[in-house]
């Protein structure tokens, strides 16, 4: 969770990203290790005439590449909330697209839902609503709800 409340011309700004325990470079190093080992083994056998190992190694590495690529794309998902003047902007960037929500900060409610095993928060205004903080832990989410609630009421 990156809290950027001191950013330029913004009363409050926050970016929340999906938990991903491996950085982009580490992910590709992990793929390179598998590709190097499997590739060398398949090439060595191909060199002594056992070439049918090569296409299987290729297929496997292609599947591993697709999996890592998908993880990389998912890792780019993020949510952003910005309070600027009397406006509130929320954006959810996911693989399936971008969802935007804009409202008057003074007319926006922070809704906390205590479901079984999980707490959710949403921002609601004029009948429309957007869930926020799905990438955060329960504790961080409650913390964020309190912070937003205070910020929404503060005069800019």
């Amino acid at each position, binding site marked *: 969770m990156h809290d950027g409340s001191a950013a330029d011309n913004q009363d409050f700004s926050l970016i929340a990203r999906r*938990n*991903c*325990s*491996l950085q982009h470079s*580490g*992910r590709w190093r*992990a793929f390179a*290790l*598998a590709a190097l*080992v*499997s590739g060398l*083994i*398949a090439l060595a*056998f191909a060199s*002594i*005439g*056992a070439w*049918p*190992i*090569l296409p*299987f*190694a290729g*297929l*496997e590495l292609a*599947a*591993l590449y697709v*999996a*890592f690529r*998908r*993880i990389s794309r998912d*890792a780019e998902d993020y949510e952003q909330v910005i309070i600027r003047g009397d406006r509130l902007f929320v954006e959810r960037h996911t693989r399936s697209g971008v969802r935007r929500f804009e409202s008057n900060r003074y007319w926006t*409610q*922070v*809704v*906390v*839902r*205590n*479901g*079984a*095993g*999980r707490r*959710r928060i949403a921002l609601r205004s004029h009948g429309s609503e957007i869930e926020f903080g799905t990438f*955060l*832990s*329960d504790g961080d*989410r409650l913390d964020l*709800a309190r912070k937003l*609630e205070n910020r929404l009421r503060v005069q800019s």
Partner: protein
Amino acid sequence: MSTAVHDHPHGHDDHAHHPSGLARYLTTTNHKDIGTMYLWFSFAMFLTGGVMALVIRAELFQPGLQVVNPDFFNQMTTLHGLIMVFGAIMPAFVGFANWQIPMMIGAPDMAFPRLNNWSFWLLPPAALLLVTSLFVPGGAAAAGWTLYPPLTVQMGMGMDLAIFAVHILGMSSILGSINIITTLLNMRAPGMTLMKMPLFCWTWLITAYLLLAAMPVLAGAVTMILTDRHFGTHFFNPAGGGDPVLFQHIFWFFGHPEVYIIAIPAFGVISQVIPAFSRKPLFGYTSMVYATASIAILSFIVWAHHMYTTGMPVQAQLFFMYATSLIAVPTGVKVFNWVATMWKGSLSFETPMLFAIGFLFLFTIGGFTGLVLAIVPIDIQLHDTYYVVAHFHYVMVAGALFAAFAGVYFWIPKWTGRMYDETLGKWHFWLSFIFFNMAFFVQHFLGLAGMPRRIPDYALQFADFNMVSSIGAFGFGLAQLLFLYVVVKCIRSGEQAPAKAWEGADTLEWTHLPSPAPYHSFETPPMVK
């Protein structure tokens, strides 16, 4: 103004809700459901392969041919090996991986839940192919699980079914490995660095890499047999300029890492159980990680110790002999660390710990006989004798299977929310321990005396030890029905298990989740310090 809303317990957002009936298991993407299916599937295959072992031991109870004809005997040895390796032991540890990895790293599920479902559902058709191959013209493959040509090039259609089954099983393993690697690398809870992962997770990360490296080799090998059989190639057929020994090199390049693909997750289970019942942290965690990785790397440079008798330059024999002996060093590190973990610990001997100590004792015996077989002049005497059969059953049964039993007894309170019957669990251990040694220890003597493996009849001087071995095998088989009873009794009427069923257990599933673990756990990751 903020509003607090409490969802209805059975409402749309109720995370305890899950589908029921057959559809739940066909379509499930939940790691716990899939783990359960893997474990039940592997147990069913264990019983199937076990019955085949009993057919073998019934025939070998006395010299002469009494129960089955030699060809069917060979079909039994082949299917027993294939089913136990690919259908029972490997899926059992994938079952553990499915249940435990997300809970141990604080992840909500595996990285690719649908792929996970598919990985499992590839297994039953493959198992069906193997078992039904018994009923096709010519019967099942009868060349041993190693599938050596030229015999496999000449066999009936049962061989084609076995090849197809091996392809499907390999595909399942590769998809499972991709899921495990991506989960372990990307979905660890904040604060859980790689060197803070429970050792079980480390062993699976290394195993998954081993699978990725080894499985295409097996797939290629059986494909070449298939094309030699039906498409006019001559990879292994000497009549067309092929080389049957090339198959042995390719097969064992896969086959020796395969031993560690089975053994390394077993090391992981033992590395969770021994500290829990010693009430001490694992001794030498870092060295355990490096030792496991070293074993995995070394497993790729020792394959030819399975084929000293095929004829190879003395320099190659020396290389493979020394390289194989070298594996004793990281394995010794692991055994030392497990013993050092127990040293001055506050030990208690519940069933998981009994199986772990049984593993430690018997697996070490299997390791030592492996060292004996690594020595070229000795192996040339013992090659293809019952000494080899005894050796790999000490590694596979007393090693991997005992570790799997330890794991089931250790985690079943978390899986079911109920405790198993401790007295019956201990009976299961002691019966398994005694009958296992009765079945397999005597086989060392048979091998040293020169009894060849994979024969339905033998000379009279081997009769007594074979009789003892067969009685042990039947006793061991019956003891596993007791295991089934213990598990079913636990699920149906076991006492309520606390969240932390074992005082010394300290991984996330014990410290952060109730028993039974909820259908969805760690939807938001915990913070690991």
